[in-house]
């Protein structure tokens, strides 16, 4: 297929929309968390301000090449993940760069940012960064498992790895969604989802009181701004995958906003209700509660 140069501005448009929606959604969720604690919470534009401020810091330090590249890896991971998956079903404009690969590409590309970030944090030489990475990797190894199983169950169910085709198979009423056709897989995936969102009870990775926010301890100014941008993009990019796989995808932007919001809300909802697990507790939790669901879903497909 000859490359269509129009893909580039289209992708940038998607990126622009998603970044803004991500900033908005992050603040909204934070505000909801605050409301749960009977506070007003931050202004809705606070994350933009923080980002501008971080870019506006005049000085910065670097611990070395890998430290420098860490946030670049991180944000590339987020942006790439977003662009490798079609955002809006049936829209050529917002199918992004999904011609480069299918679901598997997206799944493995999730680790691109994580790995680079871990390396960057490692070069800072800060023990808390290393401890945070150790915890994060340990936790993610089992948190990803139910999700991987669910993805596999879905792929088996629809006999395809193409995101577009999976969404296509779920069209025609919400009863066609994987949520209803394969509830076990969705349940497993949504439990796994909790583990990858860095919210309680699975946020021991960045435990602020204990290992001052873990891997990003040494990051600041522009580095941090890049990472904040990623924090806006990455969850959405991830949720887009969930939405496409399990909740029928979105064929227009309002549906997209709504579904993403609801899925995001799920982790936020659990997050404000529960305290924090230790790493080995969360590993056991995933193995005991989420993985069996995933296995069942694979067997029963």
């Amino acid at each position: 297929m000859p490359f269509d140069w129009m893909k580039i501005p289209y992708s940038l448009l998607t990126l622009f929309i998603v970044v803004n929606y991500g900033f908005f959604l992050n603040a909204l969720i934070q505000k909801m968390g605050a409301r749960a604690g009977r506070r007003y919470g931050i202004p809705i534009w606070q994350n933009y301000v923080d980002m501008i401020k971080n870019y506006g810091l005049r000085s910065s330090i670097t611990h070395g090449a890998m430290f420098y590249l860490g946030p670049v890896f991180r944000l590339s991971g987020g942006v790439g993940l977003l662009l490798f998956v079609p955002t809006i079903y049936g829209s050529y404009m917002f199918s992004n760069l999904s011609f480069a690969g299918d679901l598997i590409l997206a799944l493995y590309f999730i680790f691109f940012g994580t790995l680079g970030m871990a390396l960057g944090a490692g070069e800072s030489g800060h023990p808390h960064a290393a401890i945070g990475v150790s915890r994060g990797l340990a936790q993610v190894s089992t948190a990803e498992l139910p999700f991987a199983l669910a993805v596999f169950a879905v792929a088996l169910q629809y006999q395809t790895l193409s995101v577009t085709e999976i969404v296509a198979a779920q069209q025609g009423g919400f009863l066609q969604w994987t949520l209803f056709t394969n509830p076990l897989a969705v349940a497993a995936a949504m439990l796994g989802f909790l583990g990858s969102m860095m919210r309680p009870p699975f946020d021991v990775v960045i435990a602020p009181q204990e290992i001052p926010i873990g891997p990003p301890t040494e990051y600041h100014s522009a580095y941090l701004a890049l990472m904040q941008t990623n924090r806006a993009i990455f969850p959405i990019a991830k949720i887009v995958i969930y939405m496409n796989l399990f909740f029928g995808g979105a064929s227009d932007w309002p549906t997209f906003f709504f579904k993403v919001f609801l899925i995001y809300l799920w982790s936020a909802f659990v997050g404000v209700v529960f305290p924090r697990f230790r790493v080995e507790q969360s590993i056991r939790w995933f193995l005991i509660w989420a993985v069996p669901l995933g296995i069942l879903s694979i067997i029963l497909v």
Partner: protein
Amino acid sequence: MVNAIYIIVAALGAAFLLGLLKSEKRGTAYVITLFALSVMTWISAGWVWAFVMERAAPVDFLTGGTSPPFSINFRMGLPEAVLTLLASLTGLLSALYMKDVLCALGQRAMAVLLVAVMALTGIILTRDLFNLFVFFELAIISTAGLMLLSEDARALAAGFKYLIVSQMLSVFFLIGIIFAYHATGTLNIDGMATASLGLKAGGAIAFFFLFIAVVAELKPFPANGWGLDIYESAHPGFAAIFSAATSSAVIYAVDKLLLIGGAEWLPMATGIGVITFLAANLFALPQTNDRRLLGYSSIAQTGLILAVLGQRDILGDNVLYIAGGLLLSHAIAKAGLNWISGLVAGRELPDWAALRSRPILVFAFVTFIAMLSGLPPFPGFYAKWEMVRILAGEGRIALIGLILLGLLIEAGYLFRWFGYIIKREVPAQSVRCSPFQISAIFVALASGWALGFVWGELSNQYFGHDNLLLAIPVVFALTFLLLDWLPAWVKNSIAIVGLSLFFYLTFSDYDPLRMIFAIIFLIGGAVILLASYDSKGRRIGFYPATMLMFAGLILLIRATDTFGFFAAWELLTIGSYFLILRGKHSEPHALSYIIFSLGGAFLILAGFALAAQGAPLFNIDALAQLTQPLAPWVFLLLAIGFMTKTAAIGLHIWLPGAHSEAETDVSPMVSGILLKAGLFGLIVLLMTMGKQQLYGVELTYVMLWIGALSALLGNLMAIFQEDAKRLLAYSSIGQMGYALFGLALMNHLGWLMALMFVINHYIYKSMLFLSAGGVAKRTGTRDMYRMGGLITLMPLSFIATLIGIIAVSGVPPLSGFGGRWIFYNAIISSEYRLPMVIIFLAGPIAFLYLFRLIHTIFLGQLKDEYRKIKEAPFWFILPQMIYVALLLAFAVAPGVALRRVDTYLNQIFPGGGLQWTGTEISSAYGYWNPVAIMIIIAVIFGTLFAWLLFVNRKAQKVKQFNIVYAAERPYRPETTHFAWNFFAPYRKALGFLVQPFATRFWDGVTNTLHTAADISRRLYNGNGQSYAFHLLSFVVIAYLMRMGA
């Protein structure tokens, strides 16, 4: 042709002449002795020449023209000629070897020696029972006399015990002769055979006495305590005769007797032989005294040959080839080893480390133990192959099992001994030897290799197998033995050119599948060898071993029949064993490697033999034609054998130590290249045999589970390692698990994935091993937690490791992703779902150890003592950079390597392949475009990097302690570097999975063997009465078993 009688005459005459000499004329006496022995040797050699070259017919003759007992009945045939040559040559060489002793003791000792050799040749030559008895008596008496030559005080006691036992045997023998003569009226063996002694009244009991008397001379279990005392206390020169010549003569006597007894006595011979073989090997296991160990080994070998003779009903004419091969291997090796033992001062096995001061002796030792263990290219190997083939063809599976078990135990203690020689401290007393002694050993060495060639030729002639010593790769490898005096870089260049040239000359021979392996073995080997330029000096022994391994690998992919395949397998096993043994602390690991490998090889041997059903030449492709119920068993044996090499879980315990303790440039060879041999075996197996069911269980399904568990547990164990190379070694277990899993899926994409893993694993594991090795070389440690922060000092090693871990983890855009992508597509089309869960769990766990690898070495805090270290040596970096380039190239264009394989796999699994349209690759389920991925990621990454560079242009570079530390400051880098026990929470959660069950199991097996041996060994308490009792009970038991039935 000189009449064979002169062999006897020469000895007797010389002995007589010696008696006439004055006792001062010891020099003259010695010359006479040597002359007599030389004449005997010459005559025998003449006969051998006549039989081999001129195809002469066997000659029977009588002395004095009357029939026995008034004269002696002789026969000279090919076996007799060879054996007399063996006996007299051993006598001659031992006489040379014992020059000092003989001259000190005088003519009488020389006379006794001559009589002993004469008696042995007599035993071999004679064709009548009475004279057999006479020669036996002569041999016994002269043996007892020779015992006194030893300086060991225990020799006297041993000789006395020997006399007691021997006289008992003589009585049996005599009684047997009387009865037999009475029954048949002839003393001639052939006469008795035609008269069917066994059918005559009292004939059976007569033969029983004869048989038992001669067999007991072979020191069968348990009636062999006295023999051991002789081996232990005799002078090594004599022990050589005793071990090589006497046992050969007696074996031949047994063979002659069995002619009389007929087929119904064969099982008994087999039984006694096998039990002796097993028991003696078992007892040898805990031995620490070298000569006693040799004694046990001799007993074991004669037991094996006895067992082979017992199988002559099915072996037919081949018995000569097989028993002869085993016997000659044994005789030469034992003579050689005994002679070497005389040069070593200490009597404990580790004292043999003294040999290291003379490489030629080490080489001789290796040759001898390889001959004993039945390794190629020696006669024992060919004999082993043919024996197992024929036995399997006749369905004697249990016997094969017992023999192979015994061989494995034997190889175990022999190679353990070799490990001591190479690795233990050199004792203060060095090797002392005269040119005579060296020349004796050298003759044994030369004849060992010569016989290897002869047996190879015979094998070619009779069974159509290739002579291993004529295979170009083997010759190339052996050439390095001769070139070992050259400096290492010259040899290295020759090796690299040789590998590349061989590839250039042969690359058109391979199909796409074999092509991948050929490239990895040959070109891949050459690339890794670049790292070897780093070593200085001559690096004695490295290149023969390396090239032997590569020779094995090359022959493996070129093999068309099972023999060639198996021979290649054994060659690569030995070669790699020597390589691994070179590591500084690798002694125990190399031992467990060789034992597991030989165990696996024996399973393969058994599998091939079972498949061939007795056919001398069995094409590998013919495996496909096997049917139930045979096929699944063959499959099982072969699969386990190959999985031993790929270190599938449960059989993996040799790998971590062997790979991590090997030298820096050896680790990538054994990990990146050698492991692929196992995969190649599995591919060949699965390609020909496909799916097999045993008791309703799908065997490939079992393999699927094994693969999945290997992947999981290998990865899990890797994350808990502190040693960088050990971590990589465990990771190899995991990676091989993936490949095994892919193969066991038995579909198109599964295989494609396995092959992708083959390529990827070669590249990144070699690269990582080199990188870790380079770092270890510079830092002087392999413990990762001691390193840290090396990124600025060793940036190129860091880049290699970084690219390596991204590739291993399967993160796009590097080539590991392609493997994962194919993997997912492969499992969707497969119906097996449960084992995948395990594989899914294994995937992310890889991140844990990979991050640890790069973080604890290159990131974090730099330690005081490493502040000044330099980048790894150029020759380590060069191949790493080549690999980086390869990985990137392979990531962008996987089609270069895979497309042809994909097409080729259509022959095996039609359909289900990939579509290659332009740069896009698609399957029935999904698609990916490596070029697009690479470009997109590069653009995004580049843009963001440029942006960060712009906004962050004024960043201040700080140093390692400029970190926020809760308002404190770091104290020392050691306490700031978080590295040790990196995944402590993981151990808490999943540590129970990595309990060393497999290690405990195999430890248990070894301990049980040792304990059993230790307990039973108390039979031999050194008491003559006990020995007599053992002998009697042996006779009684044998009688009951034979006659009672």
